């Protein structure tokens, strides 16, 4: 539990504690200041929102957003009830068809209703994790190679510099067309839209990990390299005992940057290509043009922010767990 609090606190809590009151006093700024910041933000938001009139009505303030968050939850449970009814109907229809046509093998299909806000969150999370994993599996080994060998770095560096600044919006059409051309199957395991989104995320979030890994590996303390030489470590041991442990902080810095970029890229890709996920939710609401749309988009914006923050904190705690130098300050 305290570990969890650590993850979620906004500043490293390393103050010595003396008694309960002491703990409250020493913790007060850490808890109070973020709270003050948040309240100020809410107050400014509320004030500014009132004076913005859009074509879809007044810009939503915190109250309307809160209300829409509630209605999204209600919609989610209503949709679950519809899903149950759907499955019951499906069973009946399957039974009726088997009665007419005994050769028919009934199968249960997924509910075909529209995904709710929470379904979309799950889709986005799943997609970004897959894209991020693909990117990491490529970027870490290539980064290590670049860090170890000056010539490999010289060969790959121009490519890194060339592709690093490319926006997801530029990759997306290419990825979409290539996936459509190559990923042809009658019964695909993943939908095309999922593959497209995940690959676009990978292409965009490859670079920070790659660069940071390369820098981390090439900056290893000369003493450690010498130790390795003296002990005549095999290349494998040299990698696992010397290189990886000492470059872990840099690799993780890269991974954290990558995950952050991946999450941003995913939302943009989903909006543009109408692939399922939070991005599609935002675009659909924008197109709805109802008086509630903006408040619902704002719910999505806050959710996207919160998830991005939580993802980063999770990476940070993983980094803490695997880092050998427990005294270094991570934030």
């Amino acid at each position: 539990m305290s570990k969890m609090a650590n993850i979620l606190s906004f500043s490293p809590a390393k103050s010595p504690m003396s008694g309960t009151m002491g703990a409250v006093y020493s913790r007060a700024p850490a808890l109070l200041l973020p709270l003050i910041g948040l309240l100020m933000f809410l107050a400014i938001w509320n004030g500014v929102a009132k004076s913005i009139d859009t074509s879809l009505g007044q810009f939503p303030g915190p109250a309307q957003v809160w209300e829409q968050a509630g209605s999204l939850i209600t919609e989610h449970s209503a949709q679950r009830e519809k899903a149950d009814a759907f499955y019951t109907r499906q069973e009946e229809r399957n039974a009726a068809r088997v009665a007419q046509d005994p050769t028919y093998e009934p199968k249960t299909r997924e509910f075909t209703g529209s995904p709710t806000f929470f379904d979309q969150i799950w889709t986005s999370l799943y997609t970004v994790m897959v894209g991020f994993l693909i990117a990491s599996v490529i970027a870490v080994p290539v980064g290590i190679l670049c860090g170890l060998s000056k010539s490999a770095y010289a060969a790959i560096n121009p490519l890194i510099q060339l592709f690093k600044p490319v926006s997801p919006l530029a990759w997306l059409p290419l990825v979409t067309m290539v996936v459509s051309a190559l990923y042809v199957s009658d019964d695909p395991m993943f939908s095309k839209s999922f593959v497209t989104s995940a690959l676009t995320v990978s292409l965009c979030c490859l670079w920070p990990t790659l660069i940071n890994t390369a820098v981390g590996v090439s900056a290893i303390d000369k003493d450690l390299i010498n130790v390795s030489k003296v002990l005549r470590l095999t290349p494998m041991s040299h990698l696992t005992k010397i290189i990886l442990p000492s470059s872990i902080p840099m690799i993780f810095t890269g991974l954290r940057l990558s995950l952050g970029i991946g999450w941003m890229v995913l939302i943009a890709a989903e909006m543009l290509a109408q692939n399922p996920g939070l991005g599609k939710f935002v675009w659909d609401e924008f197109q709805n043009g109802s008086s509630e749309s903006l408040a619902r988009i704002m719910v999505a914006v806050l959710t996207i922010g919160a998830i991005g923050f939580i993802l980063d904190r999770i990476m940070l705690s993983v980094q803490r767990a695997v880092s050998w130098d427990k005294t270094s300050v991570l934030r």
Partner: protein
Amino acid sequence: MTKFKNVSMLKQIKKKMTAGITAAIALSFTLGAPLASAQSDVKVGWPEKEELKFGFIKLTDMAPLAIAYEKGFFEDEGLYVTLEAQANWKVLLDRTIDGQLDGAHMLAGQPLGATIGFGTEAHVVTAFSMDLNGNGITVSNEIWEKMKAHIPVEDGKPVHPIKADYLKPVVEEYRDAGKPFNMGMVFPVSTHNYELRYWLAAGGIHPGYYAPHKGDNAGQIDAEALLSVTPPPQMPATMEAGTIYGYCVGEPWNQQAVFKGIGVPVITDYEIWKNNPEKVFGVSQAWAEKYPNTHIRVVKALIRAAMWLDENDNANRPEAVKILAKSNYVGADEDVLANSMTGTFEYEKGDKREVPDFNVFFRYNATYPFYSDAIWYLTQMRRWGQISEPKSDDWYKETARKVYKPEVYAMAAKALIAEGKAKATDFPAFATETGFKPPQSEFIDGVTYDGSKPNAYLEQFGIGLKGETVL
């Protein structure tokens, strides 16, 4: 718009072969032959594909899809359908072509444009027309004030329909002052583009030509009014910003301008061409060939939905509005949707008039895919240069047959009649139906359209390409 060559060579060859075969089949139907008369057996086989995904754009005329889903008409056919909103017409078309969508709510011009290769090239077909009418043309307050000076008034209200003749002096004033007169429509092959052009040209304002053979797809050659693509939801904002002075779009974006007080709808498409065909349900030809039973069953479900929407003098429309207002369908506010769906239209603020046929889904054979409707769109593509070369009357008819599939519709309708879900009198007489409506004359410029003589039809217009003219 650029031409997209996004398919591999192999795919192209395959496509050309299929297109050839279909053209041969289409040719074997002669003009006036009864359709699907050989189909005495009306029992439709089990669907080959049961899980389907259909795309739509958030507009009130996607209603047949939403109703067929919500009322269980798809499930009655053994189909498990997912409906998915798409970002724009281009994404929707591309996804239907590459198979991510099994079918979609499309602009009537899209299957035709795609099949003849204007824009994205692919063979797309339709067996179901989704509705009649449903669009309007709106101008900004400033333009309206200037137009008003020329419009005759009766009982303190402007006389409708308002012709573009009254806009002409305003356009000239702008042009004399050296300012381009910009207007918006939603897509190059959209019904809105052709309706806006028709209205402008009827009033003597040249809307400009396309010249795809020269790589000019802006459609502004010789134009007095410059038309450009603006996505529907952005129309009011773009007009408010002064980038365009008017636009042609579907609902609720005309009424939105009235609610916001930024513009005045001057005319509905119903007044430009009474009961004009609007959207269609499109699938790729490859899909239609692979899943014939599924295709018929989808059309069956959609016919039932359209019947439900128009039943008992639109008695179900309030319920339909409630369904459409859900955020996964159109999602706009109920009162905005209800305005046009229940048969009223507000022009200038306070000037609310009855337009009972603003949205027609079933009556007047609205769902039947008439060849003559397809040919009208093709004539407009020719008129404005999207088809740059002269074409014979037979070419128009062949192209219409390649894209419009009334034989599939007829099989679906017959199956519904056999099941007792519809009456034979609800449909055209399939034994004698030629697919050509009798000549229609209810256009704003009084020109008569006879779908069997497309070239002669084009000859009647003062503005527009015709005969052997090539830009």
